[in-house]
């Protein structure tokens, strides 16, 4: 019973979108009664729009991938350092990093707007990974540091005995063992960047460069007085599908990433 309620609560709104997206507009407003009629026209409209809807998904994927790469490049060494630096320093720093993780990113948009303007980074998808990496770093550092700390110290000591330098130890001993944790962290970072809205809203204005979140808001604001809800629903379905697939494929890594973060963070 409780399980069924949970299923309906979680999936109901999404299934309603799917249903709406396949119905002609007249059927939604009750002008068309009786015979069940279905249509793919809302999807055609989106896919053939200018710019085509899939471009937004592509842009989001590009931003997500570059931001994830940059975040990891910064977070992995930092997490290693934090896990080995000693108790007092690591405690204080971890607390600051945790505070940054909770900080609502929207409060940064004005400063980011000025950065984009003064350094001519607006409408540059790759440059968007600069603020995104900053926003994702706290979470990534907290997750990875906990995993570094779980690795047995003896392993590293043995590597030192073998005469391996710091870089070699990281590259050949620690990173392979960290692979699962890094995979979990990457997925969470990617999801965050895929979904991020306020900064994207201020950095991107050209419609062919929009990522999914601001594109969606623009679609939402495009027609206030008519009810193009079939098109809206088709957009939410198309916009949700990639992440739902990602969740289904990597469910174990994502869930373990979130729970690990909670236990040790």
């Amino acid at each position, binding site marked *: 019973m409780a399980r069924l309620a949970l299923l309906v609560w979680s999936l109901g*709104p999404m299934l309603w979108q799917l249903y709406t997206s396949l119905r002609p507009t007249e059927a939604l407003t009750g002008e068309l009664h009786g015979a069940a009629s279905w249509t793919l026209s809302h999807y055609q409209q989106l896919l053939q729009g200018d710019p085509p809807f899939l471009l937004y998904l592509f842009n989001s994927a590009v931003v997500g991938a570059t931001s994830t790469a940059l975040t990891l490049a910064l977070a992995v060494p930092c997490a290693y350092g934090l896990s080995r630096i000693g108790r007092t320093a690591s405690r204080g720093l971890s607390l600051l990093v945790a505070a*940054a993780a909770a900080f609502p990113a929207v409060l940064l948009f004005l400063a980011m707007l000025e950065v984009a303007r003064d350094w001519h980074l607006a409408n540059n998808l790759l440059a968007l990974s600069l603020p995104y990496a900053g926003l994702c770093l706290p979470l990534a550092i907290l997750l990875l540091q906990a995993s570094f700390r779980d690795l047995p110290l003896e392993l590293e000591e043995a590597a030192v005995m073998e005469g391996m330098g710091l870089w070699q130890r990281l590259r050949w001993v620690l990173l392979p063992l960290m692979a699962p944790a890094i995979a979990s962290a990457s997925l969470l970072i990617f999801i965050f960047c895929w979904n991020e809205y306020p900064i994207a809203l201020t950095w991107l204005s050209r419609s062919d460069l929009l990522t999914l979140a601001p594109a969606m808001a623009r679609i939402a604001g495009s027609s206030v007085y008519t009810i193009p809800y079939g098109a809206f629903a088709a957009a939410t379905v198309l916009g949700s599908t990639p992440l739902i697939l990602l969740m289904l494929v990597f469910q174990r890594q994502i869930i373990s990433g979130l729970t690990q973060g909670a236990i040790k963070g």
Partner: protein
Amino acid sequence: MRWRLWLLMAPALLWLVAIFAAPLLHYAWLSTQAQSVLTGLEPRPVGAEQWLRLWNDARFWQDTWQTLRFGAASVGLEMVLGLAMALLLHQPLKGRGPLRTISLLPWALPTTVMALGWRWIFNDPYGPINQLATRLGLGGIPFLSDPAITWMASVWADTWKTTPFVALLLLAGLQTIPADLYEAAALEGASGWQSLRRITLPLLTPYLLIAVLFRLAQALGVFDLIQVLTGGGPAGSTESLALYAYLNAMRFLDFGYSATVMLGSFAVLVVVAAIAALAFRVGRSTPGEVR
């Protein structure tokens, strides 16, 4: 040896300072300037004028009230529902793995996507809830056009999206509680409710605290959801502090005041988080409960 560790950490730490600390310092400076259309978008020092303006700005205080109301209601609901969801997902039931994934799906969706979806669900009269209500003879519910109701609709949508996240945090906490504690309690004849109150909740407190603080910070910065779901309306009744700061910069082109509103809302956030953390500490150190 140690300096090499600091060297490894330096790039990330500097990055964090640049992204988080520098903007706040910049706002502190900008809040002492007038930078708007009136000054030709050039900053001009005005002392404490913006802060006085904030203090006397009825709209700022109304948005503060609205943001606090939204934060308290949604975080409160999310904790209760999240705990229930976590307890359910913790039980060794059939199909637990898939159920965990499915219940997490709302959390993974972009907020703007799900907000647009909810705008349609709340639609009066064509949304599914109102169609059902009409069929039951209850009449339409003006979810998005009645100031007394719309803020609750926004809480509902927020709860839908973020409860799974809370549930997963709490689930992680539940997994750290040894099962023999419950077995011992059951042997002593404790009811399910008693072991929830005496074992689960006390041991879950650190996780509840993390979830409350994290969610409070996010809820008090609510922006995406409100902008897409209601645009702050009707009659400004759902406008959050972050949306007001945004409008000041992007619509009124008043950057000096926007920075002041940002810092004002940050102060609200810090005060509320401190109160919440303190409340937990007091609640924890109250002896009477543990017997």
